[in-house]
């Protein structure tokens, strides 16, 4: 009974709303991209149709990479994100495994505390933390953010991994225990290898959260040589004169690409992680 008209109707029902959401979601990125390849003569001329590029140029990218510390910021951002993600996965596992597998007094209290800590937003803590970092003489070192990012990432990883660990069947571990393996051996050789998807989800999330962090980096890192991309872009590429938008958009685009690439490979894991906390199986 499906007629040609029915098809069109069906397509409209899907693509009218979905298309609207797509255009709204993606336009800022489109604008970022075309701004970054427009010559200044187009960017600052109101008589040129703005939605397309007439004479594309890579000048802004060249300027960004040669005249600012962007590459160094990218290196810093990656280093910080990788190290703090690794720390958080390890510490998160050390919390989640006992909570998922062992019975002991206080387990539920610890689980609730971890959930609560995860929900504490940084603005509540940044002033005392700034003082602590000062006292430790860690200002303007990458150590300052490598130490503080896991304060949000450890509870997060622990919570996500706890949910994942509980879905892994216990039989293999029980068999290993009967064969005489110690708890550490059982965890290390039997259990953890089964949890790779959980680690991937938690790792991607932790990595994107590190890349996204701004407040601590803004406060702790005030020298150009130690800055991360978000702070470097905001603190150094926004200048008094008007003619900086090309470089700024080039920086914003390049800074977004690492996250976008990782995410595109692992989008299924990402969505699974995103919905893990809020959808009952």
């Amino acid at each position, binding site marked *: 009974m499906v007629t040609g008209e029915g098809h069109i109707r069906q397509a409209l029902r899907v693509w009218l709303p979905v298309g609207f959401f797509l255009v*709204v979601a993606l336009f800022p990125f489109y604008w970022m991209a075309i701004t970054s390849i427009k010559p200044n003569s187009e960017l600052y001329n109101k008589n040129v149709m703005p939605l397309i590029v007439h004479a594309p140029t890579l000048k802004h990218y060249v300027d960004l990479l040669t005249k600012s510390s962007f590459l160094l910021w990218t290196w810093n951002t990656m280093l910080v994100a990788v190290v703090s993600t690794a720390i958080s996965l390890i510490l998160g596992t050390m919390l989640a495994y006992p909570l998922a597998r062992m019975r*002991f007094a206080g387990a539920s209290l610890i689980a609730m505390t971890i959930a609560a800590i995860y*929900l504490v*937003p940084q*603005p509540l803590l940044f*002033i005392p933390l700034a003082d602590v970092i000062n006292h430790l003489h860690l200002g303007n070192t990458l150590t300052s953010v490598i130490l503080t990012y896991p304060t949000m990432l450890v509870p997060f990883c622990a919570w996500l991994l706890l949910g994942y660990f509980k879905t892994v069947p216990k039989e293999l571990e029980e068999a290993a225990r009967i064969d005489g393996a110690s708890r550490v051996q059982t965890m290390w050789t039997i259990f953890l290898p089964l949890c790779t998807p959980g680690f991937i989800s938690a790792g991607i999330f932790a990595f994107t959260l590190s890349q996204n962090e701004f407040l601590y980096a803004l406060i702790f890192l005030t020298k150009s040589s130690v800055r991360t991309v978000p702070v470097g*872009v905001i603190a150094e590429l926004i200048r008094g004169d008007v003619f900086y938008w090309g470089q700024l958009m080039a*920086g914003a685009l390049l800074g977004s690409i690492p*996250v976008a690439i990782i995410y595109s490979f692992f989008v299924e894991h990402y969505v699974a992680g995103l919905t893990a906390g809020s959808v009952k199986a």
Partner: protein
Amino acid sequence: MWLDRQDVFSWLMMALPLAFLAALVGYPFFYGILLSLEDRPVAHPGTFVGFKNFVANAHDPVFWRVALNTFIYTGVATLLKMVGGLGLALAMNQHFRMKNLVRALLLLPFIVPTVLSTVAWLWMLDPAFSVVNRMLVALGWPRPGPSWLGNPTLAMVSIIVINTWRGLPFYGITLLAGLQTVPSELYEAASIDGAGGWERFRFITLPMLRPIILIVTLFSVIFTFADFQLVYVLTHGGPANATQLFATYAFDIAMNGGQLGLGASVALAMLPALALLIVLLTVYLRRE
């Protein structure tokens, strides 16, 4: 062996991460409370002043403006994200080609570092070369178009819209996952009983989604309420504190003004509302 005892093994395993969290979350939290009771200029020792900072806040008209701003920002943005996210989830919950690609693209605003996408919005709303205004003018709006971030009301509208743009995919994709768990038999049975589209939505979809909507909303309210990045990049709280939120105001006082004690007291003003939300959500997550 004693190490094999469940409780010994557990506490040994958790000791390091718990010590870490105690040192870098627990200690700063209580230290922040202490700071809020001190007059503490940056790089100077503090003097205990009791509740003087909180009294000063209560007499500071800007503080009340900030409180009002934060509630408006959180309330309106949350409502928009909830309604828009539900719309997005319903639109996506149909059969069509390239659905996974579309879902991935729609999530981009949520995953790209906030500061970087917000800078794109700053440029889109630039006073001289705003592409939004140029499109409005092309559609017949009188030149030169509004000053989005220069006008107090429009600045608030702008930060709310941009927060919604960023957070909506989180609602949409989570609610979509929820929609997909609603058994189709329920809809079929309802249709046989003569329920129309609206009735199916009202009496099946909404009740089934309620737990997810609640969790996502609580979660997003917490982080919208304490938002910093977006406002810092777009307006720095201006014009004339029209978009100042608790987090940006505390930052201004502590980092730019160098008054750590007073800044800490402004940040702590968020605590009652945040604590309530965090406890609600923690208890709810636990019950699940």
